[in-house]
Structures are given as structure tokens and as C-alpha cells.
């Protein structure tokens, strides 16, 4: 087992455990903080995959914005202690079965695929993923249209969120 594999296993296990804590922990602030740990693990996975730009964007967007937003939302919606009552609904075992079944189904589906255990080719020297990504996002032959649509979506979400949360007096 190489050092890279050991590193991946540590990161992966920590990510999965903190993911499990997100959905099981009772205190929602703790759940949000565990989410931060999960997101950080995913950022490290990106770094292992040589996608450094995405790793940093993951930290900026997810940890710097989305996780903070979650913590704010939890604080704004717990006037009478939200921790009273069960944190999961009465059909939680059905949910658990569904989740395990999904995992098993995905696993067996992927296992039957021929490319399941292939290894990565080395990245050609002089290949700059950030430049390539920038070109792909802005060239007409690339993905400029989806990129613009995503920006319109963000604008719409911004306006929608302000409208919804605005306290009409």
C-alpha cells in the first residue's frame, strides 16, 4: 500500500464518519460543524485528484458561504429549543433500509462495469488544469452557455432569497 493510498483511506474514512455525524447528531449547530469537516474532507479528495482549483473553490464556496449560511439559519430558527422531540421521524428504519439498499445497488451496478478498477494515467507534463478550465468555461466551443445559465440561476436565487426572507412590515 502506497503513502497516497493510506492518505486517501484516512481522508475517506474521516469524511464518511463526519458525514454520518451530520445526519445523526441531535444538535443542529454540531451537525453543521460536522458538515464543515465533511466538506473539508471532500476538498482534500479533490486535491488528491489533482483538481486544486476545485479544492480551493470548495473551501471558499462551501465552508466560507454555505456552511456559514447553515449556521446562521439554525441560529435564526430555534427560538423555543428545537432539540425537543425526536430528531428523526418514526419511519427512520425505512430510511435506513432505503439508504443501505441504495448503497448496495450502486455498488453492485458499478462492480459489473468494466472500468470499475482502472487506474489514472499520469497527467501530461505542462498541462495546466486551471487554464484549461478557464478556456472551457469561456470559449464558445466549450461550456459558455451552461456557465451563463448558472450565473442567471444564481441571480434568480439571490433575488428569490431576498424576497422570501424579507420581513414585510
Amino acid at each position, binding site marked *: 500500500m502506497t503513502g497516497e493510498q493510506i492518505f486517501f483511506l484516512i481522508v475517506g474514512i474521516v469524511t464518511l464518519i463526519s458525514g454520518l455525524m451530520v445526519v445523526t447528531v441531535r444538535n443542529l449547530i*454540531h451537525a453543521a460543524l460536522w458538515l464543515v469537516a465533511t466538506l473539508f474532507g471532500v476538498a482534500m479528495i479533490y486535491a488528491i485528484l489533482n483538481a486544486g482549483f476545485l479544492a480551493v473553490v470548495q473551501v471558499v464556496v462551501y465552508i466560507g458561504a454555505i456552511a456559514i449560511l447553515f449556521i446562521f439559519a439554525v441560529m435564526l430558527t430555534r427560538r423555543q429549543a428545537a432539540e425537543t422531540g425526536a430528531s428523526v421521524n418514526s419511519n427512520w428504519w425505512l430510511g435506513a433500509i432505503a439508504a443501505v439498499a441504495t448503497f448496495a445497488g450502486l455498488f453492485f451496478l458499478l462492480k459489473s462495469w468494466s472500468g470499475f478498477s482502472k487506474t489514472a494515467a499520469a497527467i501530461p507534463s505542462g498541462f495546466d488544469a486551471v487554464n484549461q478550465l478557464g478556456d472551457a468555461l469561456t470559449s464558445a466551443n466549450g461550456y459558455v452557455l451552461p456557465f451563463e445559465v448558472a450565473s442567471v440561476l444564481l441571480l434568480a436565487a439571490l433575488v428569490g432569497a431576498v424576497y422570501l426572507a424579507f420581513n414585510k412590515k
Partner: protein
Amino acid sequence: MNFWNDPLKVAADWLTGIFTGWGMNTVVANVLVAFLGILMLITILMVIDIFLVWIERKVVARFQDRIGPNRLGPFGLIQPFADIIKLMIKEDTTPDHADKFVYNIAPMLSMMSVLILWAVVPLAPVMLGVDLNIGALFIIAAGSIGTLSIIMAGWSSNNKFSVIGAFRQVAVMVSFEVPMLAVLLIPTIFAGSMGINAIIQSQNIWFVWLSPLAAVIFMIAAIAELGRAPFDLAEGESELVSGYNIEYSGMKFGMFYAGELLHAFTFGGFWSIMFFGGYRFFGLELVSPFLAIAIILFKAMVGYWIIMWVKYTVMRIRIDQMLAFNWKFLTPVAFVLVMVTALMNTLLRGAPSWLFITGMLLSNVIVAWVSLEIVRSVSRKERERVEGPKQVVAEAHH
């Protein structure tokens, strides 16, 4: 390859040789040497941090027409050590019903978010931690961890003032991240790369001459990110006691405090890297790496001094003023500036350098002038709305 030209590599090779000589695996030896390098960098930074306390106290004293610490040692130089001993032997309190784990981890995260920034700072052409090709974005990412540490500290203290302080501080940091990110794109446009070393290497002309407005906006956003005056409304002594770190005592408070000082110094350094050529100074950096380190530390100190200058001479503003200033003025100006710079950069590609500099400078001046004119007319209307129309007619009656 001798020691005075590339000290880091020579030292690393020497240590690796020793470790492998002990029969250690090459990979393990390399990792160990890297760890030792990190440890050394952090130690040097912490020592600088100790003296930053002294510098800060001396400078604020001069601004307030005092002398500052002068009892312990020459010029009071031993004062910071006394401060540290005091902080360490203070009682370490934890409030009732505080969330212990989160409460204890927050100061560490705060310090970490500052120290991690130095991983991408090139101290000399050959001395840098990692030359990430996304260095400029890395600064913002480290800031995100700082934001997280503040909200953790505020929430876990189980104190309403600390939560309010954390809310305010996070609101400031999240909003001022936007103009800072936009303005960091301007050196990126000029250098054609986000790598910090590439940005420094391409500054044959300091970028401040190409885009002075960007340098100013970066400085304002950096001060806001630091939560220093005039943006220290998270602290607001008269209303919030001291913001998110009320409940911390002893060295845990010390970590927040030292982290803030080092953060200010670091942003001074980034300001000099992005707009003032980093370790470059008329070819002096090529003479010796040690000279390059001296140059970048001096420039960082100048940036830090400007941050202090602003802090001790400008009054605190209210939170609504702060948010309005960011969202209605700074962010639009930063975005317009990025667009104008990108456009001018494309138009002037291949132009002689005097034309390039003049064009860039002119476009900056125009953007600044137009935005200030708009602000002036808007604020005049606002003032008339608040104060009512001027009483000119009544004057004429006499």
C-alpha cells in the same frame, strides 16, 4: 549551489542526507524535512508576532501622543514577553454550558487560518512553501476558515453579546470577501496567472501604477476582513463589550489577539505582493535571498503601518453604514474595475509599455472619478431628504 544563493534547498538536502544516512526511508525523510521546515517558518512567524505586539503598542502610543511601553528593557522591548507570561499564568476560564470542544478549538482555527496563509508567501525567488497556481484564491479560502472560527467562538461561548459580535463580524467578513476577490483578479489579469510567484515575477512595473484604485480597494477590504477600525463594530466596546471573544481568557484570548496582529501583518505582506512587487526592489532581490526576505518584510511592515494608521485615526462606523458602503459602493466599483481592466488589457495588448501604463492609469482614474461623482450626487439627495430643503427663501425675507 551554495548556501548563500539557495539556503533552503541546501539545508533541506543536508538534512535529508543526514536522515537517510541513519537508514531512513527517502519518502519519510522528505516528509520529516518538510515538517521541520514548516515548524521553523511557524516559529519565526511567532517570534515576529511577539514583536508585532510591541510595535503596535509603540505606534498607537505615538498616534495618541504618548510614549508607550518603556520600562522593561531598552525601548520597552521586553514588554511583550511580560505580556505573554501574564497571559499564560492567567486563570483559564470556561463559561457555564459552553460547548467545550467547539470553544477550545475556535482559537486554534483562528490562528491556523493566519499561519496557513504563509504557505503560499514567497519570501525570496527561491524560498517559498508551495507555488500553487491558484495562490490568489487560496488567500480567500484561508479567510473562510477564519470566518468559521469566529462564528464557532461566538456561538460556543454561550453569551448573547459574543453571538451578536460574531454575527456582525461574519457579516463584515462575508461581504468584504466579494470586493477582495474581485480586486485580486486584477493582478491575475496582468500576470496571466493566479500563482503568487508568477504575480511577483511579472511586476516589472509595480501593479500599483497600473491599477492604484485596485490597491486602495484591496486595502479597504483587507482592513474589513481583519475587523479593525473603522470596521471593528464587532468589538464595539460600548455596546458589545468586546465581540466574539468576550468569554476567552488567558492564552486562548492571546491566540485571538496574536492571530489578529499577525493577520494584519500578513495582509500588509499580501498588499505588497499583489501591488508593490513583493520581494522585488530594482534587482536587489537577485543579490541574495536574505536581502529579498528583508525587502518583503520591510514592505509588509509598511503595509501593516498603514493598517495601524487607519485603525488609530478613523472612527468606527455603524453596521448599516458598513454594509451599505460595501454592497452599494465598494462591490460595484470593484466589479466595474475588473471589467474595465480586462477590456483595456485586451485592447492594449501589444501596445508599447508607456501607452499601456497611461491607458491603465487613465481608466482607473476615470472609474474612480465617475463612482465618486455618483456617490456625491446620491449622498446630496440623501442629505436633502433627511434634513429637508435648504431654507434659502427665509433668508431672502430679511
